[in-house]
C-alpha cells in the first residue's frame, strides 16, 4: 500500500517536471534563438553572437519604442496606483449611496473584452479629434489597469483593524500622519502589488494598444507584433530577449521590495 502511493507520487512528480519544462520552454527558446548568427531563426542556436543585440540597441526605431513602453508603463503604474488606491479607500471605508454600483463600474474593464475597449477609445478619439500621443495611450492603460489596483488594495483594506488608526489619532497624530505612518504601511503590500500588475499589464499590452497607436507613438510589443506580420528573423528574438531580461530585473526588484509571493497573494502576510 505505502509502496503504491510512493510510485504514484513519483509519477506525479515526473509529470509536474515535464509540465514546468513546457511552461518555461518558449521563453528559453527565445533567449537561445537570439544568439544564433544566421539571419533565419533556428533553435537550438547554430553558434554564438551578440550582433543582433548590437543591431537592436543601435536601431532608434526600436529603442524609441522601448523608451515609450517604459515611460508609459511607469506613468501607468504611478497614476493607476494613486487613483485606484484612493478609490479603494473610499469604497471599503465609507458607506454611501451607489457604492456597490461604483465598485462594479470600476471593476468592469476586467470583464469587457480588451478589443471592445480598444475600438471604443479609437472611435471616441477620432470623434473628438484627439491625436494619438503617449497621453492617449496612458488614459487607455489607466482604464485597464486601475481595476487591478482597486481590487488588490480593497483586499488589503478589508482585513484592517481600524482601532489602530483611532489609537494613533487619540495619541495626537494628525489625519495625514495617521495615514502615512499607520494606514499606508499596512496596505502597502496591496499598493505595491497593484503597481506591479499595472506595470506588467501596461508594458506588455498589444490588444488594446494596437487600436489606439499612431505610426509615431508605438510601444515595443506593438512594434514587434507589426514586424512579425511582415518579417521573421533572428533580430526580433534579440528584442524579445531584451524584454525578457527586463521582466526578470523587474521581478528581482519586486522580490527585494515586498516578496513576489505576496504580490501574487499566495503567501501568508506575515511571512
Amino acid at each position, binding site marked *: 500500500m505505502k509502496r503504491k502511493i510512493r510510485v504514484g507520487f513519483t509519477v*506525479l512528480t515526473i509529470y509536474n517536471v515535464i509540465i514546468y519544462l513546457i*511552461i518555461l*520552454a518558449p521563453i528559453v527558446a527565445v533567449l537561445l534563438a537570439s544568439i544564433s548568427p544566421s539571419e533565419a531563426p533556428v533553435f537550438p542556436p547554430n553558434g554564438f553572437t551578440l550582433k543582433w543585440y548590437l543591431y537592436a540597441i543601435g536601431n532608434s526605431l526600436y529603442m524609441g519604442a522601448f523608451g515609450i513602453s517604459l515611460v508609459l508603463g511607469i506613468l501607468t503604474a504611478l497614476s493607476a496606483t494613486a487613483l485606484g488606491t484612493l478609490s479603494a*479607500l473610499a469604497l471599503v471605508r465609507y458607506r454611501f449611496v451607489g457604492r456597490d454600483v461604483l465598485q462594479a463600474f470600476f471593476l468592469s474593464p476586467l470583464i469587457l473584452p480588451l*478589443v471592445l*475597449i480598444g475600438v471604443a477609445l479609437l*472611435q*471616441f478619439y477620432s470623434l473628438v479629434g484627439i491625436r494619438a500621443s503617449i497621453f492617449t495611450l496612458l488614459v487607455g492603460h489607466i482604464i485597464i489597469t486601475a481595476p487591478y489596483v482597486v481590487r488588490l488594495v480593497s483586499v488589503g483594506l478589508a482585513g484592517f483593524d481600524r482601532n489602530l488608526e483611532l489609537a494613533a489619532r487619540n495619541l495626537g497624530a494628525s489625519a495625514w500622519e495617521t495615514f502615512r505612518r499607520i494606514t499606508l504601511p499596512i496596505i502597502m503590500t496591496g499598493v505595491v502589488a497593484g503597481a506591479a500588475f499595472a506595470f506588467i499589464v501596461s508594458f506588455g499590452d*498589444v490588444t488594446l494598444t494596437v487600436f489606439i497607436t499612431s505610426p509615431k507613438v508605438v510601444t515595443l510589443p506593438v512594434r514587434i507584433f507589426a514586424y*512579425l506580420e511582415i518579417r521573421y528573423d533572428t533580430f526580433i528574438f534579440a528584442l524579445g530577449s531584451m524584454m525578457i531580461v527586463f521582466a526578470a530585473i523587474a521581478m528581482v526588484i519586486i522580490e527585494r521590495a515586498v516578496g513576489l509571493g505576496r504580490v501574487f497573494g499566495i503567501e501568508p502576510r506575515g511571512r
Partner: protein
Amino acid sequence: MPTRRRRLFLIPVFLVLPLLAIFLVFYLPPIAYTFIQSFYKFSPMKGIIKEWHLGNYGKFLTDSYYLGILWRTIWLSAVVALVCLVLGYPVAYYILHMAGRARGLLVLLILSPLLVTVVIRSLGWIILLAPTGPLNRAVMGLHITSKPLPILFQESGVIIGLAHIYFAFMVLSLISSLQRIDPSLPLAARNLGANTVQAFLRVTLPLSLPGVLAGSVLVFVLSVGSFVIPAMLGGGKVTVLTYLIYQQYIKFVNWPFGNAMAFILLVLASGIILLAGRWLERGKYSAVFQ
C-alpha cells in the same frame, strides 16, 4: 455637527473623483458611442450613415461565414479550457501536497511566464512549433511521421499557445478550491475503507468542482477575448472573432459592423460568466460558498 457630517460625506466623493472622472469621460461614453454606432448603416461610398437598423447584427447572425467564425471561437476556447483543466489538475494537486516553501516556489514558477508579454511567448512557440523546429525534428527523427506535423498556423498551434498563457489562471483557481477542502474528509474516507483513488474520486474531486467550474469559465472567457495568440500562432489563417474585429478596423472601414461584432463578443463572454454564476449560486454547490 451638520457641517462635520457634510464634510464626512464629502471625503469619499473626493477620493473616488479622480478615477471616476477618467471613467466618465474616457470609458463610459466611448463604450456607449460604440454601442450606438453598432446600429448605424455603412456604405463603401458614403461611409457611416446615421440611420438606425439591426442589419449589422442580422448580417453577422445569418451569414454562415461569420457564424462559422463565432463557432470556431467558442469551440477553440472550450478546448483550451478543457486542456488547461486536464493538464492543470494534477499540477494543482501536486502543489498543494508540497511543504510551504516549495509550494510558494512552484506557484511562482507557474506564474513567472505572465511577466513576459504574450507577443514574446508566441514568438517562442513559433520557433518551437515551426516545420523545421525542434518538435518536428524530434517527431520525424523518431520516424513517427515523415512530414512535419501541421501545428503552426493551424488551430492546434493556437490551442497550445492559449493553453500556455492561461494555464496559471486555471491552476490558481483549482488550488484555491482544493485548499478549502477539509483534509480530514479524504482521510475519513480512507479510514472507512476507500483506497486512495476512491477517496479522490468520491470525496476530493466532487468537492473541488466549484474551482473546476470557476477556472474553466475564466480560461474560456479569456480565450474568447484573446487576440495576439490567434493572430500570431494562427498566422492569419485561423480567424477568430477578435481577429475579425481587428480586420474590420484596420483593413476595411466598416466600423458599425465591427462595433456590432465587438458587442456580440461581449455578450458571449459575459453570458458565460452570468450563467456559471447562477449555477454556482443556485446549484448543489451553493453550500460550499456559505
